[in-house]
């Protein structure tokens, strides 16, 4: 009797974030034939870059769980992390399907699916993500800056991918566009709030932005992203920091090694395990 108000809200499991995560095969139902004229190795390598970015940032954001400034922000950051882990699963699975040679060797009879082999059994040197996503979270302001910059760049990119010849990648990008639009909106709003909040929040925001800005170039030159970021900074009355990129282009910081040591510890202890 009391549930009628909720009946329409809780439709089925798929309505919730975990619903989609519960599928065994992330690419179920997708056409995985690599189209003519596309080099499968290049396609796989591209998906790996995009997948690693999503995986590492999703992991970082999941570290906020139970540590956010308030419960509402805890739920919001977890939603963003869930979206990114979901993107990572799809992209790593796509990469593995296009070029099985990418997938690390596991002991005979290991049931570990290809996307997990890529996530949990590669070393830092084989990860293709930008250093921007592997840096430790910093405070909430730094996280807001990072999500803003990352989501803005990735959204511009995913919008362009909507006419990519590979149907699977196109599908993944189309879904990602909706998610990233929300991430950008969330971070953009907080960026403006923190800029106009207190002296402390402004100081922290500017410090966070300087850290993030230094690593931004790795995401590539993107006029559309530039334009959007310019508008957010304007709305917040914040000047783009004058910082030089750190000298680690192409490589990784030691933070990635630490992150992976933790992330991969259980999976690697049980290479034949079933989860």
């Amino acid at each position, binding site marked *: 009797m009391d549930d009628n*108000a909720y009946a329409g*809200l809780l439709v089925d499991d798929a309505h919730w974030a975990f619903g989609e995560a519960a599928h065994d095969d992330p690419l179920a139902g997708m056409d995985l034939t690599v189209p003519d004229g596309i080099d499968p190795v290049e396609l796989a390598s591209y998906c790996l870059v995009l997948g690693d970015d999503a995986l590492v940032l999703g992991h970082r954001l999941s570290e906020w769980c139970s540590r956010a400034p308030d419960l509402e922000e805890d739920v919001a950051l977890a939603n963003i992390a869930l979206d990114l882990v979901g993107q990572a699963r799809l992209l790593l699975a796509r990469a593995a399907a296009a070029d099985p040679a990418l997938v690390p060797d596991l002991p005979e009879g290991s049931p570990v699916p290809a996307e997990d082999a890529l996530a949990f059994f590669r070393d830092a040197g084989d990860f293709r993500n930008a250093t921007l996503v592997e840096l430790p979270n910093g405070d909430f302001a730094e996280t807001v800056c990072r999500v803003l910059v990352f989501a803005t760049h990735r959204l511009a990119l995913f919008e362009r991918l909507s006419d990519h010849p590979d149907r699977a990648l196109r599908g993944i990008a189309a879904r990602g566009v909706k998610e990233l639009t929300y991430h950008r909106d969330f971070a953009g709003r907080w960026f403006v709030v923190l800029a106009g909040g207190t002296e402390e929040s402004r100081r922290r925001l500017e410090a966070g932005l300087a850290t993030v800005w230094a690593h931004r170039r790795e995401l590539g030159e993107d006029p559309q992203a530039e334009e959007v970021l310019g508008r957010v900074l304007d709305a917040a009355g914040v000047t783009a920091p004058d910082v030089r990129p750190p000298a680690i282009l192409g490589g990784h910081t030691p933070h990635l090694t630490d992150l992976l040591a933790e992330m991969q510890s259980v999976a690697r202890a049980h290479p034949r395990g079933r989860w």
Partner: protein
Amino acid sequence: MTRSEWPLYEVFVRSKRGLNHVHVGSLHAPDDALALRHARDVYTRRSEGVSIWVVRSDAITASSPDEKDPLFAPSGDKVYRHPTFYDIPDDVPHM
């Protein structure tokens, strides 16, 4: 410790087309814009196609359940005590 608790908001969701918005719960937010985002995150877990209203709890005027109640007389109930979770009558589906 500085006390700056965000105000309470009431959240109403239209779960599908053709239905009224229904009160689903409350949350805290610093302002209307973030309240709407929070509502989406907390009460719809981002499902598409729903419409959400948020309204500050202190903007709601409520009737008194019992005119004899000394707590509410004689103010005319401009400020209700605490507004979360209205009762939705059982005989009015999707009120």
